[in-house]
């Protein structure tokens, strides 16, 4: 809770910065704010402070996911340092980012659907804006428009679902909804429709097929750093919310929505992974890969057992760390004037071994090959799903992850085999820090996963 308050305060502080003229230092202040929030969140671990348990509960689940979001945000800030160079917009960007993080934290900790809704909207609105932040770039405009139209449409559907759930259970409070769902008897079409609509709304947020259409375009069009932001923080928050909601409330109804999710998972895995193969734009490829990864994370959701939350936590962290690494590389390359295309990676190992190695580690992690975090993450969700008997689903997931190897390794061979006369990219110290830290995180997560696993 303190972390949430502090991050919100820092965001508001940003709005004052313009007035009191410490704009230029605000990037640093924001970084400090994130670090402070991390510290506060960690300190609350043993004795969570929840003054409004009805509404917002910073339990272990929330703190863990918030920490993932905050750490990712910190790395993201480092990586996108040059994004904040624009003096005119520094405040806007920074506080929007902090607001997004605050929204994300709400989504991890809500105990009431209203908080979920507001958190989701805070996050979404900020991201709509950030996606369009290159105001003169048509791609960025298009991304913002597409994202906005589809996002608000999805919000409508989500709200319709919330309304129906409210109508059938009489409350917005998760515990009470859970109680009502658990005790309800007989057919409950209205509740089920409500749950399904919420599910659709959430599936949109996590870009599950067939609600994923926005993702490739938006990821592609948005400024690279914002794409990274969406792929990591937004996704983590959405998953945290999705899972929190379904674990607390709708478990007993699984008979109704289980099959839907089953189909969605299969579609997501295959569409994401197969469509990524034919891409030559890195951002677009990573977008499809992000779609596919949502499919893996959904495996934990469909299993919905005691290990689901830990596995999603682990997966999001591992995935976020790898994504940050990959996007840092991409961002560095693109900010050195090379286009968003696989060919920009040609011969990277010669041009910049650090970038190439980081990219390899990130890609191995995406592909789920030990000793990276991505491997253990996949292992974890697979085992969670197998535990509940989703053997065939896991087999399909395995097949799809084999397909994914194809496009990840295309990048690797571009970096290592293809010769190129492109210039050496250079990067700032903070970006290097972000790169090395995320690399280290990916490897550490892969080699010592125990710590994170035991949190929840």
């Amino acid at each position, binding site marked *: 809770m303190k972390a949430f308050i502090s991050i919100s305060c820092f965001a508001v502080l940003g709005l004052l910065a313009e007035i009191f003229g410490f704009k230029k230092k605000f990037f640093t202040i924001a970084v400090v704010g994130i670090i402070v929030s991390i510290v506060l969140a960690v300190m609350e671990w043993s004795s969570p402070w929840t003054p409004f348990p009805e509404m917002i509960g910073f339990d272990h689940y929330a703190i863990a996911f918030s920490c993932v979001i905050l750490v990712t945000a910190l790395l993201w800030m480092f990586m996108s340092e040059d994004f904040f160079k624009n003096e005119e917009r520094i405040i806007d960007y920074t506080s929007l980012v902090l607001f997004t993080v605050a929204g994300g934290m709400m989504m991890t900790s809500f105990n009431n659907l209203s908080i979920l809704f507001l958190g989701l909207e805070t996050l979404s609105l900020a991201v709509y804006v950030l996606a369009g932040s290159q105001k003169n770039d048509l791609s960025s405009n298009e991304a913002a*428009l*597409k994202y906005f*139209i*589809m996002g608000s*449409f*999805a919000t409508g*559907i989500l709200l319709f679902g919330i309304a129906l759930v409210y109508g059938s259970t009489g409350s917005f409070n998760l515990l009470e909804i859970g109680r009502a769902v658990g005790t309800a008897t007989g057919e409950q*079409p209205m509740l*089920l*429709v409500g749950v*399904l*609509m919420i599910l*659709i709304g959430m599936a*949109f947020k996590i870009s599950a097929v*067939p*609600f994923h*259409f*926005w993702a*490739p*375009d938006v990821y592609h069009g948005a400024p690279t750093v914002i794409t990274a932001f969406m792929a990591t923080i937004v996704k983590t928050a959405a998953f945290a919310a999705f899972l929190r909601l379904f674990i607390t409330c709708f478990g007993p109804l699984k008979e*109704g*929505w289980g*099959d*839907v999710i089953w189909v969605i998972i299969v579609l997501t895995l295959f*569409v994401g992974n*197969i*469509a*990524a*193969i*034919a*891409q030559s734009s890195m951002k677009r490829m990573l977008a499809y890969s992000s779609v596919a990864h949502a499919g893996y994370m959904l495996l934990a959701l469909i299993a919905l057992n005691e290990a689901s939350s830990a596995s999603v936590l682990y997966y999001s962290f591992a995935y976020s760390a790898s994504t940050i690494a990959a996007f840092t590389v991409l961002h560095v390359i693109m900010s050195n004037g090379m286009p968003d295309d696989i060919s920009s990676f040609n011969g990277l190992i010669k041009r910049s071994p650090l970038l190439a190695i980081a990219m390899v580690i990130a890609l191995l992690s995406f592909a789920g090959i030990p000793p990276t975090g991505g491997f253990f993450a996949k292992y974890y969700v697979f085992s969670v799903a197998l535990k509940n008997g989703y053997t065939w689903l896991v087999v399909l997931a395995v097949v799809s992850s084999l*397909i994914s190897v*194809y496009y990840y390794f295309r990048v690797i061979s571009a970096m290592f085999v293809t010769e190129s006369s492109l210039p050496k990219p250079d990067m700032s110290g903070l970006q290097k820090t972000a790169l090395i830290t995320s690399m280290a995180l990916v490897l550490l997560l892969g080699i010592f996963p125990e710590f994170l696993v035991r949190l929840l």
Partner: protein
Amino acid sequence: MSRLIFLIPLLPLIGAIINGFWGKKLSKGLSGLIGCLAVGLSFGLAVYAFFHLKTHPEIETISYVYFDWIKAGKFSAPFSLLLDPLSSLFLLIITGVGFLIHIYSTGYMHDDEGFHKFFAYLNLFVFFMLLLVLGSNYLIMFVGWEGVGLCSYLLIGYWFKNIDYSSAAKKAFVMNRIGDLGFLLGVFLIYITFGSVSYGVVFEQAKSFTSDEGVITCIALLLFVGAVGKSAQLPLYTWLPDAMAGPTPVSALIHAATMVTAGIYMVARSNIIYTLSPTALSVVAVIGIATALFAAIIGLAQNDIKKVLAYSTVSQLGYMFLALGVGAYTSAVFHVATHAFFKALLFLAAGSVIHAMSGEQDIRKMGGLKKALPVTFWVFVIGTVAIAGIPPFAGFFSKDEILAHAFASNKIYWLFALIGSLITAFYMFRLLFLTFYGKFRGTHEQEHHLHESPKSMTIPLIVLAILSTIGGFMGLPEILGGSHALKQFLEPVFANSELNMLPHHISHSTEYILIGLTLLCLAVVIWVAYNQYVRKKDVPPADALIVSPVHKVVYNKFFIDELYANVITKPLNWLSEKTDKYFENGFIDGIVNFTGRSVVGGSRLMRLAQQGNVGFYVFAMVIGIILIFFFTSL
């Protein structure tokens, strides 16, 4: 004391190692000395061992276990050697004849640059052969069995620059391997049946089996497949004539002292098993007699001096198998011994001829060598007479014994055997006459160059000639006033078999009649040969001039090689190539690649769904929602 048996094979091995690794640094003389000495010492030891056994009839076998060679689970095959009358007799033949061939080689190979290598191979050959006969279980026998195959490969392909020679060597090895597989399967079956591969255990247990049990027949037949390969019987004989590609001493070694007799040794060694299976025995006999006849017929039309001898070997081996097949194990071994003498003699003499003719092997281009090569001529005569079976030369006694046993067992065997031996006599005399009588038909240069071989070559020839002359007396049969010393000596080895065999006894009078008949026929045949090749001076036509289809077929060895090439080798190659092209790369790999390509193709299609209009995206989303509700409300 008994553990020192290993010295017998070890000495040639040491010789091989010294010559193989450091031969280049040694002078030719030293190299040859080491090679000969290794086998010579070994021969000395073998003689000692032989007399040791002979003078101590109470010691039936001497065996010693050196180390565990292969041991897994219950299977155990120690490296152990066994010396008994049978193996000691073979030791004598191998090392004795081998020694002579070694000495001969020092002369024959004197100008060859790979002199030391040649001796290394020869020694290795002797080593493996000794191992084969000394091993106390089937696995050690198999080591020698394969080892001689390898050495035959090395020696046949000795002149490796000639690709045909190396092909012949390869053929020998592969053909042998076919037999070896049979042998190996037999060994497995022995292990499964008896739980061991040691002779002692196997033969002891075999006694408890009743006659003609399926498993025993199987073992016997599988082992016999090995023998067929190694001893060049039908249908795996074709390598042996090709094996002439090697230097002549090698041929002598392969044909006389080592290698081909391995099959005989093996069957003789396993006599108990064979005795228990009359079926297997008849197979052995039939294959033997068929080979004897078949090879003899081919021998009639060959013009290469070595080829003729080669087919005669195949044919003689057929006799030995016939003997084994009718249960006359002793006779078979006896024939091995006498054959070793006269065949070594013949080959070495032929080598001497070739040496004199500067490498020419075609008898059509020889003739009238009698004067130029007197020693060679006389030893060759002795050899021919011996192989033809004219008393009192060595071949007579052994061959006659086989004929007698065949007669006792089955008259048809006898008839064919007789015909075969007559043919043998005919082509051997043909060879003799064409080579040494008449006028010289070679080039002028060759004629000028004709010379008798050096001492190192003639002395072994003379020794062998003596042996061929008197060798038969070791098995002088009772009817001719002897006591068949060999039979008595080998008694312990075959004792058990003879208990089980139905005694084929023919009366002495019948035996006399048979001998008389045989000799009469021989005389006629030799006369015919003399008439045709000395008096009429008939010379076989050049290859192109052969008109008679029968002659053509026989001359071309019944086209067996071509048959094998067209029925086995070519189809196998063809099938492999087609498999490689269509199945391997087309089908299996095709499936794999197709999967990959279809995924990529799918991706190209799938990305088109992302067609860029946000309206369409919402539309897709709504369709998704509709489908979800549609299916959940069903």
